[in-house]
C-alpha cells in the first residue's frame, strides 16, 4: 500500500521522536515544579529554623539591639484574622444561603452573583487603597486593627459566599425533600438539616480562607499599619497593629538592628509553617467531611 512507503515511514518516525521529546518535556515541567516547591519549603524552613524558639515567638522586636522577636506581630495577625472572620462569616453565610437556597432566579440575583465574583478579583493592593481611604481617613480612625479586619473582610467575603454556596449546592436534593416533606419550613430546613450537613465543607472552606488571610499583607499595610514597637498586647480594636506578613515586608527596609535578615528569615518560616498547617488541616478535614457524607 502506498502509505507504507518511504515518506510516510519517515514522517511516522519523526512523529514518534517528537512524541518522545514532548512527553519528556511534559514530565520535565512537572518534575521541575515539584522540585521547586521542595526547594522553596526546605530553604525557607532551614533558614528560619535557628530563629524559631519560644523567645522569638513571644517577645517584641527591638529597636537597635539584636535578639528581638515577633510576638506582637504574631498576636496581631491572629487578632486581625479572628476579628475579620467574626464579620465575614455571618455575612458570607447569610449571603451564601440566600444565593443557594432562597434567591429567585431573576436579574437582581444574577447581578448579585456577578458583583460577588467581581469582588473576588480585586487586587489586594487596591483593596488596601480603598481601605486607607475609607477605614483610615474617612472615619478618622487612623491605622487600626479594625480597619485591617474590615479590609480583610472585603477580600474574604466573596470567597466565604462562594464556599457557602458551593457547600449547599453540593447537598443532594433528597435532604431538602425529606425535610420539607415532613412539614418543615424552608428556614427550619436550612437551619436544622442543610447547614449541619454542610458543616464539614463549610469549616474546610473557612480554614482555607483563614490561611489565605493570614498571609495577606498588601491590604493591611496601610490599614492596620506598621506600628512595630507596640509591646503591649491589647485587645483594643482601634489600636494599630502590624501583622506578621506586613512585618516581613517592611522590616528589612525600615529596621536598623544587626540581625535583620535572621529575623526576617524567622518571620518567613513562621508564616510558611502556619499557612502550611492551615492547608494540611483543611485537607485532612476535607477527607473527614467526605467520609461523613458518604460513609455514614
Amino acid at each position: 500500500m502506498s502509505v507504507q512507503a518511504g515518506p510516510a515511514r519517515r514522517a511516522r518516525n519523526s512523529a514518534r521522536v517528537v512524541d518522545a521529546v514532548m512527553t519528556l518535556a511534559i514530565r520535565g515541567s512537572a518534575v521541575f515544579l515539584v522540585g521547586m516547591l521542595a526547594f522553596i519549603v526546605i530553604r525557607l524552613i532551614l533558614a528560619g529554623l535557628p530563629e524559631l524558639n519560644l523567645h522569638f515567638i513571644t517577645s517584641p522586636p527591638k529597636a537597635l539591639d539584636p535578639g528581638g522577636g515577633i510576638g506582637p506581630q504574631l498576636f496581631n495577625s491572629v487578632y486581625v484574622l479572628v476579628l475579620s472572620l467574626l464579620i465575614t462569616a455571618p455575612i458570607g453565610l447569610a449571603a451564601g444561603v440566600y444565593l443557594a437556597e432562597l434567591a429567585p432566579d431573576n436579574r437582581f440575583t444574577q447581578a448579585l452573583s456577578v458583583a460577588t465574583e467581581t469582588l473576588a478579583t480585586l487586587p489586594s493592593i487596591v483593596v488596601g487603597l480603598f481601605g486607607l481611604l475609607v477605614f483610615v481617613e474617612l472615619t478618622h480612625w487612623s491605622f487600626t486593627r479594625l480597619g485591617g479586619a474590615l479590609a480583610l473582610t472585603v477580600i474574604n467575603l466573596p470567597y466565604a459566599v462562594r464556599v457557602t454556596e458551593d457547600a449547599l449546592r453540593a447537598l443532594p436534593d433528597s435532604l431538602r425533600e425529606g425535610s420539607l416533606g415532613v412539614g418543615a419550613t424552608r428556614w427550619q430546613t436550612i437551619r436544622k438539616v442543610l447547614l449541619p450537613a454542610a458543616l464539614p465543607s463549610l469549616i474546610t472552606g473557612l480554614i482555607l480562607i483563614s490561611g489565605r488571610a493570614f498571609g495577606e499583607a498588601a491590604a493591611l499595610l496601610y490599614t492596620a499599619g506598621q506600628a512595630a514597637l507596640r509591646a503591649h498586647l491589647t485587645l483594643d480594636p482601634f489600636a494599630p497593629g502590624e501583622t506578621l506578613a506586613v512585618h516581613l515586608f517592611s522590616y528589612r527596609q525600615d529596621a536598623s538592628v544587626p540581625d535583620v535578615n535572621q529575623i526576617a528569615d524567622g518571620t518567613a518560616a513562621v508564616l510558611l509553617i502556619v499557612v502550611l498547617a492551615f492547608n494540611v488541616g483543611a485537607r485532612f478535614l476535607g477527607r473527614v467531611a467526605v467520609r461523613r457524607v458518604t460513609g455514614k
Partner: protein
Amino acid sequence: MFLVVVLLSVYVFVGIGSLNIFKHVSPWHFLLVDQWTPYASTNPDFGAAGIILGSLAVVGMAILIATPFSLGAALFLEETNKQLGERVLRPVLEVFVGIPSVVYGWLGLTALVPVIRGISHEGSGQSLLAATLVLSIMIVPTVTTLSADAIRNVPTALAEASYALGATRWQTIWRTILPAARAGITTGIVLGIARALGEALAVAMVIGNIPGLPTHLFGPAATMTTVISADLASRALNPVLNDALYTLGMLLLLLSLALILIIRYLSRGFQAK
C-alpha cells in the same frame, strides 16, 4: 440581611471607583510621559508611562514563562501521568497557592536577587528579571489548574478518534485536545495575567522600585503596584502624590475589570458553540 450583602458589595465597588477619581495631572501626560518625580521640589511631575510599561512588561514576560510550564503540568495531570499527578502534583500546586506573597518576595530577595547580581555584575540584583521570575512561579498554579480542567473536559471520543487514525499521543494532544481545550486554557491565562497584574508586595521586594522605562532586564524598574506600596507612605506630605497614586490604583482596577470582562466574554463565546 440580604440587603446588607447587596449594599456592601455594590457600595464597595462604587466606592472604590468614585473615590479614586482625584485630580489628574492631565490624563495624557499621566499616561504617556515617563517622568515620575514626585519628590522634586521645584517641578514635581507625574508622568507614569514608565511605571505602566513596567507593569505590562513584568506581567507579559511572566505569563510567557509560566504558560509552557503550566501546560506541561496540566498535561502531566490529565494525559501522561494521571495517577502520579493526582497524588503528587496536585497537592504541590495547592501548597504553591497557599504560600503568602510576601514569602515569595522574601525568597526572591534572599535567593534570586543575589544570583542575578552575580550574573549581571551590576547593581543590587533587584531587577525586572527578578520580578518576572517571581511572578511566573506565583501564577503557574492558577494557569495549571484551569488548563487541567479544560483538558479534562474534552470528550474522550475525540481523542479516541485521533488515536484510531494512527496518531501518536503528542499528535493527539497538539492537534485535537489542546485546540478543543482552547477556551479554558485561555481563561486560565487571562486569570494568571490578572493575578500577576495585581501582585504588589512580592514584586516590590525584588524589583528595586525605580520608575523608568523598563528597558534593562537586569536593571531595577517599577510597576503600578510597587509604586503604590512604596509611595503611599509619603502621601500625607504630598497631597498631589496621593491623588496620583489613587489614579494608579484606579487604572489597576480598570485593567482587572477589563480582564474579567474578557474572561466572561470568552466563556460565553465558547459556550455558544
